[in-house]
């Protein structure tokens, strides 16, 4: 993958396949310690202890189901090759938490890329689910919660072009603010 945001898009699809109604995606950066943490947390069907053990094995997938495949191993590799860490926690019928830690000063660190497009695509292509996107840069944070947006929008769907445009503007603006780019 050329961008970590593509790994996020890919791995989040596992949560959707697991029937999650709420997905939380966290991207946290700390410039002093040169670290980035990406969390994908869902309330889907979860996995057994056995499945959790096998989930990072690229040869675990069976062709008929294609439930995991290369997505998780590639994400794990992207984290570990920077000197970071990768963790999968899951409980059957409770949900799955995937956490990837990156060292951003490593030469092998793949840039985050267009995270805004990833989040928007997940939201607009899965309007029947809820997403909580949290972005944290050096302790400053903003969040986009589709449950909040749905309360305001009523029966106007999140994939209505003007709504999608508003969300893009909101994410870009807030990201700039917490990066210290706009006063």
């Amino acid at each position, binding site marked *: 993958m050329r961008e970590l945001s593509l790994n996020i898009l*890919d791995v989040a699809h596992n949560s959707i396949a697991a029937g999650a109604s709420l997905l939380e995606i966290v991207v946290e950066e700390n410039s002093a310690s040169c670290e980035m943490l990406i969390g994908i947390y869902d309330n889907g069907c979860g996995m057994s202890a056995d499945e959790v053990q096998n989930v990072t094995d690229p040869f675990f997938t069976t062709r008929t189901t294609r439930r995991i495949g290369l997505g998780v191993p590639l994400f794990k590799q992207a984290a570990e090759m920077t000197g970071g860490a990768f963790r999968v926690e899951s409980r059957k019928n409770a949900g799955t938490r995937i956490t990837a830690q990156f060292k951003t000063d490593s030469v092998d660190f793949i840039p985050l890329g267009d995270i805004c497009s990833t989040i928007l*695509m997940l939201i607009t292509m899965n309007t029947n689910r809820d997403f909580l996107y949290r972005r944290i840069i050096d302790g400053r944070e903003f969040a986009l919660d589709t449950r909040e947006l749905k309360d305001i929008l009523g029966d106007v769907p999140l994939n209505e072009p003007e709504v999608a445009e508003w969300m893009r503007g909101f994410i870009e603006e807030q990201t700039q603010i917490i990066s210290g780019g706009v006063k």
Partner: protein
Amino acid sequence: MKTLEELNAIREKAKATMTVREDNSDVIRVVVGMATCGIAAGARPVLNSFVEEVARRRLKNVTVTQTGCIGMCQYEPIVEVFEKGKEKVTYVKMTADKVARIVNEHLVNGNVVTEFAVGSFTK
């Protein structure tokens, strides 16, 4: 600043202009493969372009959705177009640049863009 009040205004406007989808029988379905293979090959901008182009032209009879692995990973990004009463058309090695032509020639005017379709690559 984007505010939640703005979203309120968008809702009022959208409610007034939202039109009911046209008769389901002539709906065209555009399906983009978004498994690991598709995403790695560049499916995200392709899907984005379809959504934007369809919205820009206000094509009410076209839906854009995603699916998993279509099975020919070496030809990703792959886009399938389903239209009732017609054979499925599979576009391969898609890029965002090719989208406008497919929307214009195929989705609007009904002419398959054969040079982007799977047949012209596998022969």
